[in-house]
């Protein structure tokens, strides 16, 4: 019976979307939590990931592109960090504005290189087409996306929980003193985190491209939900980001069924509701970013 099938499809879509958001949001939050920089270029880097894979995949194959594109994006991230570096310890607004400028510039670069028009990206051949599960059929590719996203989240979790860097990032690496006390090169760590965070945006961009198609502004579709996910989940909380991502994904997925046009707005309503109930987000501890 179609209604049920539709509901299931929307649930699955929401789930996939949510995992994707979680990946973007985590990359974003790593940078936010460590450098106190709102990385505005996160979205355009996400887009770049997609565009790189668009150009690479035909030559090196999809899997290779999945690895190479994020590396390229991460590299760009490292370059950006050289500039962002100069804003540390100053008004946090400067970091935000710097990456904002970078976002505008990079978006224009996309226009110059790939043109202003949109591209649709077809899924890799081995996952083309749908699964047929009796009453419903579901895109194989989306399943792959979910799997990849989960794997990536696992990787980040391992990084945060099982490596000294993770310990510091969680401890709130904004306190340079403490990091140095632990005998870790702050500068190195910061660029590492920035590279990592942006690379994650790149990966997300690659795997999102076949679902969302590519246009120079596609980044905004990814980064704004990420912002919301972070606000909902609470800054500095891994599970907060995952939880927030899933919530936002599912809510917008399901609202697609009820109020298609409102689906984007719904996530903002969700955010407002959460803020009313828990000003610091679901799992956010009292953060140094507030009074």
């Amino acid at each position, binding site marked *: 019976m179609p209604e049920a099938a539709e509901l299931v499809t929307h649930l699955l879509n929401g789930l996939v979307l949510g995992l994707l958001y979680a990946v973007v949001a985590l990359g974003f939050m790593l940078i*936010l939590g460590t450098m*106190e*920089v*709102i990385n505005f270029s996160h979205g355009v880097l996400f887009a770049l990931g997609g565009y790189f894979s668009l150009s690479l995949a035909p030559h090196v194959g999809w899997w290779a592109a999945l690895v190479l594109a994020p590396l390229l994006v991460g590299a760009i991230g490292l370059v950006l960090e050289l*500039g962002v570096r*100069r*804003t540390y*310890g*100053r*008004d*946090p*607004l*400067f*970091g*935000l*504005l*710097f990456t*904002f*400028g*970078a*976002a*505008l*510039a*990079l*978006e*224009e*670069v996309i*226009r*110059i290189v790939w043109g202003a028009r949109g591209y649709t990206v077809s899924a890799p051949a081995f996952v083309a087409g749908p699964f047929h599960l009796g009453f419903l059929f579901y895109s194989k590719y989306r399943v792959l996306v979910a799997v990849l996203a989960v794997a990536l989240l696992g990787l980040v979790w391992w990084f945060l929980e099982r490596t000294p860097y993770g310990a510091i990032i969680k401890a709130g690496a*904004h306190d340079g*003193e403490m990091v140095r006390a632990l005998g870790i090169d702050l500068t190195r760590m910061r660029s590492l985190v920035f590279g990592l965070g942006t690379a994650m945006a790149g990966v997300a961009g690659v795997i999102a491209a076949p679902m969302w198609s590519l246009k120079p502004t596609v980044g*905004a579709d990814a980064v*704004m939900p990420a*912002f*919301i996910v*972070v*606000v909902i989940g609470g*800054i500095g909380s891994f599970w907060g980001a995952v939880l927030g991502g899933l919530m936002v994904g599912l809510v917008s997925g399901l609202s697609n069924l009820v109020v298609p*046009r*409102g689906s*984007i*707005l719904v996530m*903002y309503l969700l*955010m*407002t509701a959460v*803020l009313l109930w828990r*000003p610091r987000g679901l799992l956010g501890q009292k*953060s*140094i*970013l*507030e*009074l």
Partner: protein
Amino acid sequence: MNRWVPLPMLGLFLLAAALPSVLWMGGYTYLGTEVMIWAIFALGYNLLLGYTGLPAFGHGAFFGMAGYFLGATQKWLTGGLWLPLAAGVLGTMLCGGLVGLFVARRRGIYFSLLTIAFGVMFWFLVFVLDAWTGGEDGLTGIQRLSVTVPGAGGLALRDNVTFYYFVYAFFVASTIVLWRIVNSPFGQVIRAIKQSETRARALGYDTPRYKWAVFTLSCGFAGLAGGLYTLARYGAFAEPMSLQQSGNVVLMCLIGGGFASFYGPVLGVVVFLVLRDVLSTLTDHWMLLYGLLFMGIILFLPEGILGLIQRARRPTRFHDTQAAEAARTGDTPSGEAPGPAPRGGG
């Protein structure tokens, strides 16, 4: 300090008054009008950014929404000019006040993050409510009706030069009012909050209430500017509400030196708009130049033009400032914005 109009401001007013007669060829009157409109917006916004140290990043939303309040009132409620204009200001302040309730307890980038989110929320709202806003078509057909000014009689605002002076009047009034505000006790408090919110609290100031008030206030000026902008273009559109426009007003305050001087934003607006005008005719890809410019300013000109001039005027003191800040960043909560609040005295 003259309590009403200090000298530099008087100069500013005179220059602005003279412009149309020098720029008698049409094209620039419109640019001049836009400059004054954005100046009102930027000056009001700087109350938040430069004086209270609250990096709001969704303010374009308020600038833009005013147009819809104005348009809706003129088309479907009262018609006329003054009531719609007032509706623009009040409606915007109302929305600002509501958002303020959420953000007033925040600061630093967490404050930015929330303001971004709410800004984008309003942006999407425009497209969802396209029955009222006209969606991406914009709310067009808004009229610049003639106004009867006691003494001057009826003024036909359709004429660009007349409209220029109509905006000019608001520009002068807003500037004076803002000048009073930043030098008032309230102004003292918000500048104190920027320097150390904890201390201000310890002195018995209910800082969230003050932050809420500044936020709402600056939204009021955004509303006024937005209303005039709508009249200038005979229509309200979503584009001014986009994140990029929100970024633009921040940049305007920064280029000019909003952190350093009361007049920073005005200078910033002039530089920005003229630059945009030139860049966008220079190349199809002006956004690239524009983005790079943005980055460059952050890296090399963080205190803006006037800030640079002040630095040049008293290098030694600036040196101390640096030292003091370096010392401070160690022990202050990082949410706080180093960098001096602009002096009332400009």
